[in-house]
């Protein structure tokens, strides 16, 4: 850059002091440092840093808001899922209740039918047993009459005399009793 002017300004043969320690340049350097640094500070403090800070804050707020929104939506969907599952469980319970009720009712009905049928059958059975007993008694009385006749006939053939009716009946009854 302006390196040539540096030499033209210094008188020839003059021993230059080490530049950073040349106190003649201090005033100018400090003057411009104050101006530039104060300018930089004011621009940073009043314009640049508030702006960047606002950008970062806005972004952070946006992220936080979005996260909160997502959290809210998640909670809502969780609640919907829970209520759906509750409804499902309720319906299932109700279905089971209806089914068991129906089952009980049908079991009771079939039990009742079975009972009446059984009593009817028992009655019929009892009737039949009575009939059998009557028939048996009738048959038994017939058997003794036939036996008496047969015995009387046998005795008459063997002895040639007709036995007494009462004696035959007693004998047959005694034989039947054995």
């Amino acid at each position, binding site marked *: *850059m*302006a*390196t040539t*002017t*540096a030499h033209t*300004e210094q008188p020839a043969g003059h021993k*230059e002091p*080490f*530049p*950073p*320690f*040349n106190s*003649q*340049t*201090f*005033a*100018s*350097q*400090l*003057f*411009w*440092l104050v101006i*530039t*640094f104060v*300018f*930089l*500070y004011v*621009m*940073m*403090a009043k*314009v*640049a*840093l508030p*702006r*960047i*800070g*606002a*950008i*970062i804050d*806005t*972004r952070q707020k*946006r992220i936080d808001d979005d996260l909160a929104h997502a959290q809210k939506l998640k909670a809502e969907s969780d609640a919907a899922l829970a209520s759906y599952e509750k409804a499902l469980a309720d319906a299932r319970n109700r279905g089971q209740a209806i089914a068991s009720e129906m089952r009980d009712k049908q079991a009771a009905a079939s039990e009742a039918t079975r009972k009446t049928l059984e009593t009817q059958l028992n009655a019929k059975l009892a009737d039949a047993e009575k009939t059998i007993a009557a028939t048996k008694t009738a048959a038994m009385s017939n058997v003794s009459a036939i036996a008496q006749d047969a015995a009387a006939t046998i005795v008459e053939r063997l002895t040639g005399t007709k036995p007494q009716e009462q004696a035959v009946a007693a004998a047959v009854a005694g034989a039947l009793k054995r």
Partner: protein
Amino acid sequence: MADPIHQFNIVNLFPVTQIGGHEISFTNSAAFMVLAAGGITAFLLATTASRSLVPNRLQSVAELSYEFVADTIQSTAGKEGMKFFPFVFSLFMFVLVANLVGLIPYTFTVTSHIIITAALAITVFLIVLIYGFWKHGLHFFNLFVPKGIPIYILPLIVFIEVLSFLSRPISHSVRLFANMLAGHITLKVFASFITLLGSAGILGIAGATLPLALVVALTALELLVAFLQAYVFAILTCIYLNDAIHPGH
């Protein structure tokens, strides 16, 4: 061989005014200060003009620098340190850009002059003093009296603490100044070896590759130093400001 000191010369470009018998000129140093301050402002304002919710690359750089300095302050001086955020940010960006621009050949390094780094360091020192006394009054002296020290060695400790406090602006300013000065001199010396060897025939050109490689490596190192020294300057500022905010040890 080129004079390695020549790059630090202050060149008066045109006179401006006179203050208290001192000639005030617009110099090459002033030009680079204006460039640094104007460049930082223009860059930050231009890249954030659209205020995009999803930043593009350049806006990301602006936001990154903001968050980097904000994190540095909050980790060293706490939430209250954010009062000084614009100051620390200006300081960091000014030193960083001055250091980095100075690495470009034929430019001038503003921070290679002790008067600049000393002025910045003394500004920090005065802010610490003024804010410390304004905020805490005489309790600010607690800074020099560590708790839990036996009474018989307390005078010695207080003496050391006061001495180290007073020497802060010196170490603060000399660290940056010396790093910039030494780095640029080293670069210049090794670079002049290249031309020196290069003018000595075919063998010299072959030999010049060594200093060339060194200059490349040194340039990378100086880029790191330029950033690191700006960061060190800013973080030391934060640590000193932390003393003004919380003077109890």
